[in-house]
Every structure is written in C-alpha cells, then in structure tokens.
C-alpha cells in the first residue's frame, strides 16, 4: 500500500462537509435512500482514509504527519496557519470518531426511517462529523476551537431536532448557553497563550513550555485552569454538566454519537492534548482530578434513581467522563484515552440498544413501564447485556480493563489525594454497576408493565421519537439497527484487550501506542515502585464492587421488587434529593439565571435599551425636528427676503475683509 500523502488529510473532514452540503441543500428533494446513501458514503470514506492512515503509520513507523502551513490569520508577526496534524493520539480519536460515527449513521438510517426531516437529520449528522474531525485533526488551538464551537452548533441543532417540542428546543438552548460559559474559558486561555507565547500552534507552544518549565508556573496554571473550564463545559463536568441530561431530548442516535461517544470526550481529548501544560501545573491537575472524581460519584448517585432509560445512561455518561477526568488529573492520560475508547464502544452500544428498546415499545422511555422484554427482542437484549457487563466492569470485557487502569493509576499516583480518589472511584464503580443492572432488570426482566397493543400508541408528548405511527406492538428492530449493535457489542467485549495491563498477563499495547505522545507524562509515575501484586489486588476489589452492584440490583429489582420502594420510602429525604438531582438546576436557576434575567429585564432592557438607546434615538429625532421647524422659516419662498439675506451676507463679508485683519492684528 502506498503511504498516504499529507494533503489527503484534508479529505477526512471535508468529505462529511460535502455530505452536509449535498444533503443540506438538495436533501429535501431527494428520496430517503439517496439521503442516507450520501451520508453513509461521506462517513465511510473518511473511515477508509483513517484505516489507510493507520496502516501508513504502522508501516512507516511514523510519529506524526502534518499538512503544510497555509497562512490563515497573519497580523504583524503573529500568525495562525490552517494546518492539520496527526499523531498517535489523533489516530485513536480518528478511529473512534469515524468508526463509531459510521456505525451510528448506519443505525440512524433504520431508526429515523419514519421521521420527518430525514434529510435534515443526516445533514446535521454529517456537519457534526466534519467539525469533530476538524477538532481532533487541528494542529493549533484556534482550529481546534473552530471544531469545538462547530460540534457545539451541531449538538444544538440535533438536540433541538424535534424543534416543535418545547422541551427539545429548550434543551438545545440550554446546551448551547452552558457550553458558551466553557468556551469563554477556552477563549481566555487562548488569549493568554497568544500574549505569552505569541503562537497558538501546539508544536510551538508545547516546545516553549517544555523548554522553560520553571519560568511560567503561575501563568501556566492560569492557562490550564481556563482550559479546564472549557473542558468542563464540553465534557459535562461539575459545574457545567447540567446540559447533558437534558440533551437526551434529541433523537437517540444523536445521544449515542454526540452525547456519549464523541463530542463530550472533546474535553478529555483537549486536556490530554495539552498534557504538556498540565504536567507543569500540579495544582491544575489536582483540580482536574477532584472535578473528575466529584462528578463521577455525583452523577452516578443521581443515575441510581432516574426512571427514564435515556437519562440513566446520560448520568452514567457524565459519571464515566468524570472517570476520564480523574485519570487526566493523575496524569494517566493514556488511561483516560483508553477509557474514552472503550466508553465510546459500550456507551454508544447502550444508547443504541436503548434506542432499539424505545423503538420496540413505540416511543416509551420510562423503565417503570417496560419489563420482561428479554425474549421479545432477543438481539437487543443480548447486545445490551454485553454493554451492561462492560460498563459495570466485569472481566474480561472492555470496561473492566480501562476502569481498572484508571483506579490503579489513581491509587498509585503521587497525588496526596490519590487514595481518596481511588476510594471515590471504587464507590462510583459500585454505583455504576448497581444502576446499570437496575436498568437491565427493569427493562428486560420481571413482569411486563406495559399494555401490549397500547404500547405503540402511548406516545406521550414528553417523549421523543415519534414511532407511534408505525408501531404494531413490541417488535425487534430492523437489521440496519441491529447490525451496528452487534458490531458494537463485539467491540465492547473485545475492545479492552488492546490494553490488558502487564499485571494481568497482557502487554498494554494501548499505552505503548500512545507513548510517543505522552512520553513525558509517564515519567512521574515511574518513581512509584511497580507492584503487580497491588494492581492485582485492586483489580480484584473493583471486580468485587461490580459483583456487589449486580447482587444488590438483583435483590432489589428482581427478587424483591417491593424492597426498593420500601427503601426509598424509608430514606425519602435522600430519595427525593436524588430524584431532583440535588436541586442543582433549581439552585442554578435561583442564583444565576434569575439574577441575570432581572439584570437583563430591569437594567439592560428598561434602562439601557428603552432608556439610553431608544431615548437617544428619540432625542436626536426630536432635536432635528425642532431645529428644522426653526430653520424652515428661512426658506420663505419670498425672493426679496433671499435678496435681503444676500445683501446681509455680502455686507458681512465686506466687514470681515475690511475689519477682520485689524481685529486679528490686535489680538
């Protein structure tokens, strides 16, 4: 195979963009098969290109590949080129984005088959792919930011896909606005980078950082903290995680692609990409670790009581992203990326399987009205089972290896909080296992809690996915939906085998693959004595936690279904708090949204807009009119009065010429 030319890198993001243009401009008039054909082709080709790229890297032992520098912005010495770069980290991200993206496109073709706005959906989906690929391929902060904003836009458009529904439109706006806060942090970080390093290119900034590490301590911490703020917005971490659960108003494939597998991992990718900066700032790393751990356990605890199947998965996503943050925070970047990859597999699988369940039940998303679906939709059941066991951390499924790696790295990290972080992570793992098996039992086991024929017609206003129209009772999904599920299930099972740690008899290919990128990051860890025994013990403990979660869920939701209700009654305060998600939305509404609304209404609207802006315009108009009404009298139309003014003017001119000089001389 011939090695790939760097120019072909441009094709990777531009092909989906072409698909977006084709479907966006002409899709309305095209038949559905053509629309999905274009969209699939425009994601399959980048996937093939990425495969070729991986092969090139492998064959040539390349460390990085860059396109040429074409000046994009050039202002007196400062310049930003538009250039793409690929290294091993980018390769991993590219593979995940194009691979999972393609599978979800296939799934969408079946899932959305009966929806209005089919072409619009695929146009947006391709637009998302374009921006996401730009994000991971970017060779400088600004181009990354373009992708960063672009995926936010695509996410907004797709969350609000059912824009006639209030909840969806509001969720879209919420996602966009909350993300703006994070983007603001990112922008500030970029301004600091420009002022300090005079460049936005990764290579130049990172080279300067590693050349004079000691000089820039406080400055780098500030930059890193602003970057973290950006990452908390995009990757749904405390304090900006609130948009992600609401984003479930979008169609399920969107939740799988954007809000589980790819876009929300952009923050993790960004932190990993900037690891050189973070390595110089232990404080910022500590913040990242604490945010991650707090988010992980916080979101997991909310996930335990949610009844909407997609919301459970949403909180689980927030929680798993917290794990990745935690891993970044203990400088275990390759562990974070490893979990990112396995999470992309099993979470996309879980969402798509949940979508298949929802599809089967004609739009029902409430787990209290599911149950007993095990034999009715067997393929969905078995694939989802793979996903549930993977996320719960059962060996040898993918989630076990990546989660275990993170927990071990947290435990072994020199961070003084390492043990605490590990404990929080372990508790989160227990909760994760519990709520995932709760979902599993509620959905597939026990008694059937929906009405057979009504199932297709109980489509409620609050739920998306208008499948009611074509539903004829419970039915398995078409193969275009099941095939991606099966592939993702295989990946969720086997995806972790690329990173089996040495302690468990593997050789951790994944970490070695990323070594060229994170080489510096690995150093601090080597000071800790490597102990396989410790790693094995920790692995056993986390497996025990997963099994305990399974048993608890089994007890509460299969053997003693009444016990769960009894428990929630006896801890009604805690239960209500969890059910209302710790009232975070309400608190934000009170302390941030309300004051802003008040400020907007009473100061900005009544005073500034009505008073100053409208007032000044009105004053200017009235003044002009008043002056006009005075000056108008001069234009009398009477010739002799004009002649009179002429005479007066001439006399004045004469006076000035005669006496003016004398007056000037005197002064």
């Amino acid at each position, binding site marked *: 195979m011939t090695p790939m030319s760097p120019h072909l890198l441009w094709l990777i993001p531009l092909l989906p963009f072409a698909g977006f243009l084709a479907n966006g401009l002409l899709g309305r008039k095209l038949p559905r098969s053509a629309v999905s054909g274009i969209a699939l082709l425009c994601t399959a080709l980048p996937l093939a290109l990425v495969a070729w790229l991986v092969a090139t890297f492998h064959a040539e032992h390349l460390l990085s590949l860059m396109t040429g520098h074409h000046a994009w912005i050039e202002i007196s010495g400062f310049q930003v080129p538009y250039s793409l770069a690929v290294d091993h980290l980018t390769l991993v991200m590219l593979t995940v984005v194009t691979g999972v993206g393609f599978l979800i496109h296939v799934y969408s073709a079946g899932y959305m088959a009966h929806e209005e706005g089919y072409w619009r959906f695929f146009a947006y989906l391709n637009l998302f792919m374009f921006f996401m690929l730009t994000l991971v391929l970017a060779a400088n902060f600004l181009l990354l930011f373009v992708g960063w904003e672009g995926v936010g836009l695509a996410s907004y458009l797709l969350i609000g896909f059912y824009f006639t529904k209030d909840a969806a439109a509001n969720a879209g706006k919420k996602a966009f606005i909350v993300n703006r806060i994070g983007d603001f942090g990112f922008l500030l970080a970029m301004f600091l980078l420009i002022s300090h390093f005079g460049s936005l290119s990764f290579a130049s900034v990172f080279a300067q950082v590693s050349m004079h590490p000691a000089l820039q301590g406080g400055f780098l911490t500030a930059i890193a903290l602003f970057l973290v703020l950006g990452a908390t917005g995009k990757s749904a971490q405390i304090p900006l995680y609130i948009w992600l659960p609401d984003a479930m108003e979008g169609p399920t494939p969107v939740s799988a692609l954007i809000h589980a597998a790819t876009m929300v991992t952009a923050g993790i990718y960004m932190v990993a990409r900037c690891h050189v900066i973070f390595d110089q700032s232990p404080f910022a790393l500590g913040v990242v670790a604490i945010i991650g751990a707090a988010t992980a356990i916080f979101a997991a605890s909310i996930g335990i009581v949610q009844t909407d199947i997609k919301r459970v998965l949403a909180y689980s996503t927030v929680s798993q992203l917290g794990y990745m943050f935690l891993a970044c925070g203990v400088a275990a970047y390759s562990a974070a990326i490893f979990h990112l990859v396995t999470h992309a597999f099993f979470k996309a699988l879980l969402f798509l399987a949940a979508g298949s369940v929802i599809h089967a039940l004609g739009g029902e998303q409430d787990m209290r009205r599911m149950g007993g679906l095990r034999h009715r939709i067997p393929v969905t059941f078995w694939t989802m089972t793979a996903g549930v066991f993977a996320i719960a951390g059962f060996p040898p499924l993918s989630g076990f290896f990546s989660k275990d790696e993170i927990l071990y790295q947290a435990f072994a990290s020199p961070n003084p909080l390492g043990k605490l972080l590990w404990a929080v992570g372990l508790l989160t793992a227990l909760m994760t296992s519990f709520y995932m098996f709760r979902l599993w039992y509620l959905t597939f086991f026990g008694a059937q809690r929906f009405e057979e024929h009504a199932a297709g017609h109980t489509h409620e206003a609050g739920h998306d996915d208008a499948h009611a129209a074509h539903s004829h009772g419970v039915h398995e999904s078409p193969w275009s939906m099941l095939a991606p599920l099966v592939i993702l299930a295989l990946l969720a099972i086997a995806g972790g085998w690329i990173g089996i740690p040495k302690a468990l008899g593997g050789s951790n290919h994944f970490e070695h693959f990323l070594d060229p990128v994170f080489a510096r990051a690995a150093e601090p860890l080597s000071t800790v004595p490597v102990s396989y025994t410790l790693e094995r013990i920790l692995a056993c403990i986390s497996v025990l936690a997963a099994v305990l979660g399974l048993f608890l869920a089994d007890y509460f939701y299969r053997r003693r279904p009444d016990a769960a209700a009894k428990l929630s009654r006896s801890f009604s305060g805690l239960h209500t708090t969890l059910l209302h998600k710790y009232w975070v939305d309400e608190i934000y509404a009170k302390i941030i949204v309300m004051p802003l609304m008040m400020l907007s209404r009473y100061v900005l609207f009544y005073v500034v807009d009505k008073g100053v802006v409208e007032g000044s315009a009105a004053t200017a108009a009235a003044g002009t009119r008043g002056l006009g009404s005075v000056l108008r009298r001069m234009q*009398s*139309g*009477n*010739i*002799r009065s004009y*002649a*009179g003014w002429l*005479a007066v003017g001439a006399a004045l001119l004469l006076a000035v010429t005669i006496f003016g000089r004398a007056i000037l001389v005197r002064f």
Partner: protein
Amino acid sequence: MVPISYYLVLAAILFSIGVGSFLIKRNVITIFMSIELMLNAVNLTFVAFAHMWGNLSGQIFVFFVMVVAAAEAAVGLAIIISIFRTRETLSVDQVNLLKL
C-alpha cells in the same frame, strides 16, 4: 481736482439706494431700475479708479458693463411684458408660483 473719495462715496450712496429699493419695492419695473442703478454705481467706481491710476482698462470695462446691461434690459423687459400678459400684475409678491 475732485478727490477720489468723493466719487467713491457717491457710488456707495447710489449702490445703497439701489439695494434698498431692490429690497423694498414691489413693482418689477422699479426693481429693474434699481438693478440698473447698482450697475451704474459700480461703473462709477470703475471710471474713478481708472482715472486715478491712469489705466484705461477700467473704462473699457465700463463699456462692457453697459453693453451687457443694455442686453439684459432688453431681455428683462421682454420677460416683464410676458409676465404682465399672463398674470396681469407687476407686483413680485404675486408672482410666486415656485413658492411652496
């Protein structure tokens, strides 16, 4: 020898009378006459200065002014007659069609 200032003062008086009657009078013919008066006041200054500097070009200028004034009188009178025929008045205050 009459000093130059006498001529100039006389010319100024004539010119002022011309301006004043131009502004005050309503009859078009009178206005026309006051214009002639102003022209001749200027002619007088020309001649006076020409005499003072011993330079003939001022006097030649006067001839030109007179020629132009004669032509202007012919055209102006024709216009006045035409206005009188159509509007049957010579008062400028009533010839105000262009006024809003």
